[in-house]
């Protein structure tokens, strides 16, 4: 395990591995998204209260869970980079940020469109909505902070601290609907013993969530490869790898 971890932390190995792994994540993600969308839009019955508007969950929930998952990956990678001074971990963290920011935007916008017919408002300063908006600001702040340094190592260290401090917001977003009175509905699928959602509605959602995670992996592979190239100056392995591509 440690040997593998050590091997993966070498830029040439990570660059090649990410290139090889990418299609194995991307194409299953596309297929699962198509299956999940068909299940959610066509096969799942309409909700007894929310009617067909509930079908928005099949894009809103996977985006939202991805926005939190990406931040967690980013903070863990930043922490690993900071503690073990591993450059590749900082590269992973830096690659996560723009993807996470986009999915936070998707979550906020689809949530707002969902809120209009269901709650009668596009926006409310509700704990869940507000903490998700703070998540977007954390991603943007992380990227702005990185961009403000010319020196990559200093950018890595400063942005890693911000990512770690901001990680406190992740459980706040997740449990905001439990801790406070929220307009947003509570968890329905994380209650593993008895999910309060019917099977025919649940499988497209789980399929979509898995598809989004695989998709993130594929996009991260591309971003990471770009980030590795940006950081590697004059390395001899670049000559061989780029000549071959």
């Amino acid at each position, binding site marked *: 395990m440690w040997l593998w971890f050590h091997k993966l932390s070498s830029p040439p190995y990570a660059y090649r591995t990410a290139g090889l792994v990418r299609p194995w994540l*991307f194409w299953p993600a596309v297929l699962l*998204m198509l299956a999940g*969308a068909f299940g959610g*839009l*066509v096969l799942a019955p*309409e909700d007894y209260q929310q*009617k*067909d*508007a509930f*079908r*928005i969950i099949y*894009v*809103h929930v996977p*985006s939202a869970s991805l926005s939190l998952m990406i931040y967690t990956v980013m903070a863990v990678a930043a922490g690993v980079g900071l503690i073990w001074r591993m450059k590749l971990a900082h590269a992973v963290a830096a690659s996560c940020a*723009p*993807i996470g920011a*986009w*999915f936070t*935007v*998707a979550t906020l*916008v*689809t949530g707002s*469109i*969902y809120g*209009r*017919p269901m709650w009668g408002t596009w926006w409310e300063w509700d704990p869940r909505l507000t903490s998700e908006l703070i998540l977007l600001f954390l991603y943007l702040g992380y990227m702005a902070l990185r961009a403000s340094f010319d020196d990559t190592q200093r950018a890595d260290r400063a942005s890693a601290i911000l990512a770690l401090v901001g990680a406190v917001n992740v459980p706040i977003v997740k449990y905001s609907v439990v801790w406070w009175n929220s307009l947003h509905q509570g968890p329905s699928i994380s209650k593993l013993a008895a999910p309060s959602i019917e099977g025919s509605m649940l499988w497209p959602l789980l399929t979509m969530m898995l598809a989004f995670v695989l*998709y993130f992996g*594929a*996009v991260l592979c*591309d*971003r990471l*490869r*770009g*980030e590795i*190239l*940006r950081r*590697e*100056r*004059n390395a001899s392995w*670049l*000559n061989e790898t*780029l000549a071959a*591509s």
Partner: protein
Amino acid sequence: MNLSDVLDMGEYGAYVWSCYGLTLAVLVLNVWLARRSLAEQQLHAKRRLQMNSETSS
């Protein structure tokens, strides 16, 4: 359920389809941005290596 039911989504067609459209746009955009940044970095790295080999020779 026939096609017009799926398209209408009861009275919620505009809300449901705009959410799916926006999410699809974000999915496509992220792939494109990541591919573009990778292609740019590959080009930069190639140029850098070329310049280095020219100055060293």
